[in-house]
């Protein structure tokens, strides 16, 4: 129970402040007026909109991550346990993506390779030929390559492409190494079938791991993006390998 002395003391203090007033600075009204301006509400809306760039950055990162994720399997399957890839290996990469039926039949691969080689080699050879040898034009380079690939086996386009790009022996030997590796991987028979099966297993086994890597990278970037009110963008992946975006306090 409150003592009478305490009550009396509180009463005296309350009485002291009755009618007490202190002049507020005249500049204070200007600040209030500024806050009340209709434009201020717009500014607040804009400040809310300022959050969108962060979300759009996060969305852009998500898209980039998705693209990387989609791009990764081809390289991983192709380079698994093999030598590092060089230009020839990248050019040749689409060849390994052939269905099993195509891979088993070397003739069919060869026919498709010609199309792939024509399409993919033209820009690369054009750029490099231009720098190495001014006499060769884009069209002639493409044509030569096309002509040469017609009568060659699966491994030969790599050597041919390298030769047309640069005559340097060292580079040629590197390309030859890569080409020989490609020959090994695209060999017909049981080895090829086993190899492709193994690659398919890898493709099936890796998405979750890839998701974790991608979401980890995105979370690292998102950790530095503060949305406001201590909220942060967070990426997470579910058991189906789908990356979710959310806000975390």
């Amino acid at each position, binding site marked *: 129970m409150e*003592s009478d*002395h*305490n009550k*009396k*003391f*509180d009463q*005296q*203090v*309350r009485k*002291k*402040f009755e009618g*007490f*007033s*202190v*002049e*507020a*600075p005249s500049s*204070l*009204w200007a*600040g*209030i*007026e500024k*806050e*009340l301006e209709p434009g201020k509400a717009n500014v607040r809306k804009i400040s809310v909109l300022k959050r969108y760039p962060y979300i759009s950055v996060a969305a852009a990162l998500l898209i980039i991550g998705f693209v990387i994720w989609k791009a990764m399997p081809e390289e991983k399957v192709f380079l698994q346990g093999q030598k590092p890839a060089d230009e020839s290996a990248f050019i040749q990469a689409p060849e390994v993506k052939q269905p099993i039926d195509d891979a088993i039949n070397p003739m069919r691969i060869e026919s498709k390779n010609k199309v792939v080689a024509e399409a993919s080699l033209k820009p690369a050879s054009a750029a490099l030929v231009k720098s190495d040898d001014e006499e060769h034009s884009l069209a002639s380079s493409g044509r030569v390559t096309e002509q040469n690939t017609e009568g060659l086996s699966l491994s030969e386009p790599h050597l041919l492409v390298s030769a047309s790009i640069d005559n340097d022996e060292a580079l040629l030997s590197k390309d030859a190494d890569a080409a020989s590796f490609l020959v090994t991987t695209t060999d017909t028979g049981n080895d090829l079938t086993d190899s492709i099966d193994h690659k398919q297993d890898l493709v099936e086994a890796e998405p979750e791991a890839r998701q974790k890597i991608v979401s980890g990278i995105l979370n690292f970037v998102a950790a530095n993006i503060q949305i406001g009110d201590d909220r942060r963008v967070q990426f997470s992946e579910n058991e189906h390998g789908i990356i979710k975006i959310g806000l975390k306090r």
Partner: protein
Amino acid sequence: MYSDINRPGNKMSIESVLEGCRSNDRKAQEMLYRSFSSKMMAVCLRYANSRFEAEDMLQQGFIKVFRNIEQFAAKGSLEGWVRRIMVNTAIELSRKNINFQDIDEVKESSLSVSQLFEIDGLEVKDLLKMIQELAPGYRLVFNMYAIEGFSHKEIARALNISENASKSQLSRARMRLQERIKLMEGEVNGIRS
């Protein structure tokens, strides 16, 4: 220059000022501000530890007043309504600066003053200074209980503390204030003699 809307004979009545404030009329808003700013500044100064902090409270309080003017029921006192908003704003801003985790609960009786304490001779400005110099927790609870008339239950709920903690803060605040008042009176008497 704007005059007090509460003054008799003022051309602009409270109703017309309220109507103007509802339609976001800047003149009416300024009239309302000029009418209550001095009294509300005194309220804010009790909760703040500096004039700067009090001005911030006053500004935020008036912005709330103007943004919520539609909610004012014309039946009650406008000054009372503005004051409630101001007190709530001051409490809200004060509690952000206080860590109530470290509050130790003591029995109020152990801190109760045994003698009657007179402060009639004390200047209100000196008393205000003493209140401002209290620890933030003491100051907030003392203002809420002794001056605004909140119960310990209401304070406990508003500040998310126990009722005993509220009582403890209040008792310590009173003790500190009375010590300061005694000290000041002793100094004054010493100068006189």
